[in-house]
């Protein structure tokens, strides 16, 4: 599998009218200080960009550092800033969400103290113009009983990044209804409203849900309750500053899997995947994934299922399409492009009898569905880009998209470095991504899809490439 992918990059292009020549420049090779460090590209401009990095799956209690580095046009680093996430007692906060604004990054994190019986949610703001990091501020908090009874926390931002939601399922209390708390902020971190509610469902220890906030500050929670029993329900919870409504949308053989909020201009719709059958069984630690039947579109405003379509792509076997989760939802005119991918992972102790864990990820296949805003299926296509990787190698998997010239471009690793249109009408075979080691010897490399960023108004894309422990920053222009 590894050989299959080494150094090969595939690019799918939607609505590309003619073959384009892509030019790729790569930085000097570098190595990460810690293999678990994850790099994200931000503030992409024609004259450079920045990256921020953090440690993934590292359970350090005392220090969690964020490194922000500025790069110039020639892909050379020239300024690095390091700051720590806040601490509560001796416990460093966990990073929940990073929101990129025009010149600022908002880092939302949380920590808890059993001694103080509290979980606190923090915000720190990095200003790219001054290079300053603000003092952390506590934007929300709630009481906990212990680390194992601390509830569940979700943070998300609206599509236009003007609203931020912090959503907490309060700690489990036997034989009571579930209690939730919602805080909504603007992107200056000014509180807009907050509310506490009791839901109809029973309190649970863990919650299977998707939390989204719309551009106008309405919070939508898709909740999957009791999925391993015949009492399974899928509920859409709509929360505003003064109301909460719970709508059960599951039916005896229709249950919702992962979802995404889609803003079509006229209203917000929930697009996602569904399971058809008697019990929508969920196994959270399985590489095979959970059975998924197809794609659906739901209108929370009219409380109407606009359309549901079983997977039936022209290519491939639908049996591979398990545990499909939305990665990107792009709206172009009246077209909704929902890109979903099988994403499963499992963890096990390393074979050397240490207490460290190995994480094994499977990402792909990816299914691209084109629906119109009425829920009609216009097209469905399957991309066989399935990969199983251990630990940090998983960053090579998955797919990136950009909207360009009224179309959608797809970037992902596959067994050939190819540029093709979404409908396979404009395929151009392209060279392998050629990078060089520090020694000067040639090295082919993978795209890290999560890192890919396009510069608005310019034919310019930045991304990170990798091969083993070596990394490169890249600039693609055309």
């Amino acid at each position, binding site marked *: 599998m590894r050989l299959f992918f080494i150094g090969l990059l595939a690019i799918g292009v939607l609505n590309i009218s003619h073959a384009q020549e892509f030019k790729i420049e790569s930085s000097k090779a570098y190595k990460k200080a810690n293999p678990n460090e994850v790099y994200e590209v931000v503030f992409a401009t024609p004259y450079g960009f920045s990256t921020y990095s953090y440690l993934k799956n590292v359970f350090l209690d005392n220090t969690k550092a964020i490194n922000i580095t500025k790069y110039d046009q020639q892909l050379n680093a*020239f300024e690095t800033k390091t700051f720590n996430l806040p601490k509560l007692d001796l416990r460093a906060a966990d990073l929940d969400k990073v929101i990129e604004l025009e010149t600022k990054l908002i880092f939302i994190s949380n920590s808890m103290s059993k001694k103080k019986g509290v979980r606190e949610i923090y915000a720190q703001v990095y200003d790219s113009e001054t290079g300053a990091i603000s003092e952390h501020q506590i934007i929300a908090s709630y009481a906990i009983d212990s680390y194992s009874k601390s509830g569940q926390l979700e943070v998300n931002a609206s599509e236009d990044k003007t609203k931020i939601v912090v959503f907490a399922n309060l700690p489990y209390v036997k034989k009571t209804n579930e209690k939730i708390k919602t805080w909504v902020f603007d992107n200056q971190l000014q509180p807009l409203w907050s509310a506490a509610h009791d839901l109809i469902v029973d309190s649970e220890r863990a919650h299977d849900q998707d939390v989204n906030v719309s551009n106008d500050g309405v919070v939508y929670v898709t909740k999957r309750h009791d999925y391993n029993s015949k009492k399974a329900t899928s509920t859409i919870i709509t929360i505003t500053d003064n109301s909460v409504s719970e709508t059960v949308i599951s039916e005896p053989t229709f249950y919702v899997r992962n979802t995404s909020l889609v803003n079509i201009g006229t209203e917000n719709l929930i697009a996602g995947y569904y399971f058809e059958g008697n019990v929508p069984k969920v196994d959270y630690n399985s590489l095979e994934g959970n059975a998924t039947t197809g794609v659906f579109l739901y209108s929370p*405003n009219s409380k109407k299922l606009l359309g549901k379509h079983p997977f039936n792509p022209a290519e491939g076997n639908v049996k591979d399409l398990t545990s499909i989760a939305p990665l990107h939802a792009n709206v172009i*005119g009246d077209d909704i492009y929902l890109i979903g991918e099988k994403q499963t992972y499992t963890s096990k102790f390393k074979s050397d009898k240490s207490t460290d864990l190995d994480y094994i990820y499977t990402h792909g296949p990816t299914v691209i569905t084109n629906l119109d805003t009425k829920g009609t299926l216009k097209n469905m296509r399957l991309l066989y880009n399935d990969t199983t990787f251990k630990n940090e190698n998983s960053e090579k998997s998955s797919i990136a998209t950009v909207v360009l010239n009224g179309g959608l471009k797809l970037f992902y690793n596959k067994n050939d470095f190819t540029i093709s249109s979404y409908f396979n009408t404009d395929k151009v075979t392209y060279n392998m991504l050629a990078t060089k080691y520090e020694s000067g010897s040639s090295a082919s490399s993978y795209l890290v899809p999560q890192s890919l960023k396009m510069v608005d108004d*310019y*034919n310019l894309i930045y991304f990170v490439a990798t091969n083993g422990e070596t990394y490169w920053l890249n600039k693609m222009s055309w």
Partner: protein
Amino acid sequence: MKHLLILLVVSMSFTGHAQRILDETVSYYNVIKPEQSLDSSIKGYDVVVNTPYTMTVEEVNSQSLVDFETEKTNYQDLLAQSKVDYKEKLANHDDAVAQAKENYDIEMKDFKELSLLERLALTDQGKKPQLKTPSKPTYVEPREPVYREPVLSDFLIFDHNALADNIHLNGFEKGSDLIFSIDLQKMDFQENAGQTFYTQPAKLTVIAKGETIAEQSFGEESKFLTSASSNSINLNRYEKENVEKVLSEIQHYINATYGYTAVANSITIEYPKNKKREYDQLEQAKVTAISSFRKMTKEASLERRTDALEGLEKAEALWTSVLEKVDYSDDKALFNNTIAKTILFNLITIQTQLGQKDKAEANLAQFQEKIIDLDLSSSEDTRLTNLEKQIYKL
């Protein structure tokens, strides 16, 4: 084994007189009659649609080119701005280099103050301060706009002739005896408490041989559109959909009022097996009925339909004459209860499907009168109940 054979022979002797009932299914088109019959001299119709939508594909394409010109002009602004940004970037570059050097000097000063061991350790970790200055920026041009063909479905473009051509009056040919004139107004959006409502009035005028014989209004009442503000929705899309909806409503109205609409249906006719030529009359009735239904095609003329109905009346007469011969008290009779049930089910089913309520009710009454003698099975009982419900809906 021997006993089993005897039992089989005995049971066969008991069923020796039982009739085997067969059936045949035929598809046909029934015609729903209009609420108002037009004068028999009216043979053809025409439709005229007037709308306020005058935009054409050519206009959209030329507007698209105009928009692209605007985009190109805006691009000039973007280009100019990018040059300003570049100059600013270039002007700030010296400051950025000076700042980097200043930072380096401070870091180096701190570094030099460390002990030798600490300096060696930091150097070993690659953390020894290094002077990193940003490179001198090179100008990059923004992306030039690319012309894209307009998506015609996003515009309110209607071909009035095509709209008119898609409206059909069932049972009539195109002609000039009858004119349906449709005047459609623009969709009017009203906002109330953040919700959007709409009206789109349309007027239908029916002109027969130059004289207006009817007028009907549509779409005048205000209807709910969406719980979003009208400022935030794609009005063109809703309007385009609504034009089709209103015209579809008008087509439905004119067909219900004046048209003869053929509706696909099928019917199953039952008859006894006629190996010994004992049921010739019933076989004849079945053949006549099936043949009549086959004449009722989608395109069948009124004359042909009349002919088919006459054929069905002949079949009904044959069935009725056999019904009179039925001996309800003798199961072994040639014309027994089974034959009676077959005939009555045929008659009631045909009459119900053709909307002949009086005839169907009369035969239903006859069926119910003999219901004890007829000794219905549970499935026959359900079948009769369903027919009964259908008759009362006629």
